[in-house]
């Protein structure tokens, strides 16, 4: 499975492949396009990526998570191109013996994808305007372009 795809994400299909005999917990996160942001009505979002680096980084993030939480399964896929309201832009599935590890690792993976992986969204609003949005500005706090503040570490 490609980490970055222009195709619609096949959530049921990916989930069907994410069962493991030693896993008692499977967590699926789907990041979906919502119809509003900063008080404006969103029409759709267009994503782009620097694919060679994004793929390598997602591979490494998933491997880090597998080792840190001893996961049975860790998969993720991000869509690029035009994504409509309520469609999935990113999916992360983790499976482990117990739910604690599956939840924690899933949050860790999506946090790192959002902050570190070279993928960008451009929001198109119903009023005809558009904006490259949601930029990660962690370095203004950490002083380092490669150091980030993760929601999962703030409880």
């Amino acid at each position, binding site marked *: 499975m490609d980490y970055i795809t222009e195709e619609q994400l096949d959530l049921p299909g990916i989930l069907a492949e994410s069962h493991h005999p030693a896993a008692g917990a499977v967590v699926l996160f789907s990041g979906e396009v919502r119809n509003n942001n900063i008080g404006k009505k969103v029409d759709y979002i267009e994503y782009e990526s*620097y694919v060679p680096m994004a793929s390598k980084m997602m591979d490494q993030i998933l491997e880090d998570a597998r080792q840190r939480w001893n996961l049975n399964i860790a998969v993720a896929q*991000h869509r690029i191109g035009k994504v409509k309201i309520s469609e999935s832009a990113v999916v992360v599935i983790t499976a482990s013996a117990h739910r604690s590890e599956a939840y924690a690792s899933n949050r860790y993976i999506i946090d790192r994808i959002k902050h*570190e*992986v070279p993928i960008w*969204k451009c929001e198109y609003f119903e009023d005809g305007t558009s904006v490259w949005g*949601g930029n990660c500005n962690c370095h203004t706090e950490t002083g380092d372009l*490669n150091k980030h503040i993760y929601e999962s570490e703030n409880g």
Partner: protein
Amino acid sequence: MKIEVFAALKNYFSKEFEIADQLETVADLRQHLGNLNPSSSQLLGMCRFVVQEDLVTDAHPLLANDHVVVLPPSSGG
């Protein structure tokens, strides 16, 4: 050298372009791009640079035939 930019940087530069000037380091390139388009300076200050598919620091030396990719802060998900 060949420069390739993504996302919001396309509001300031062509997607791909060539720079003929002799620039020694990534820091020099960051400064040079800011001089080409001063309104991009704030965003450039937040960007990561990739040379030959590896993330590099500001001190990284540049060669005339390098392919440099400039990455704005991520906003996926």
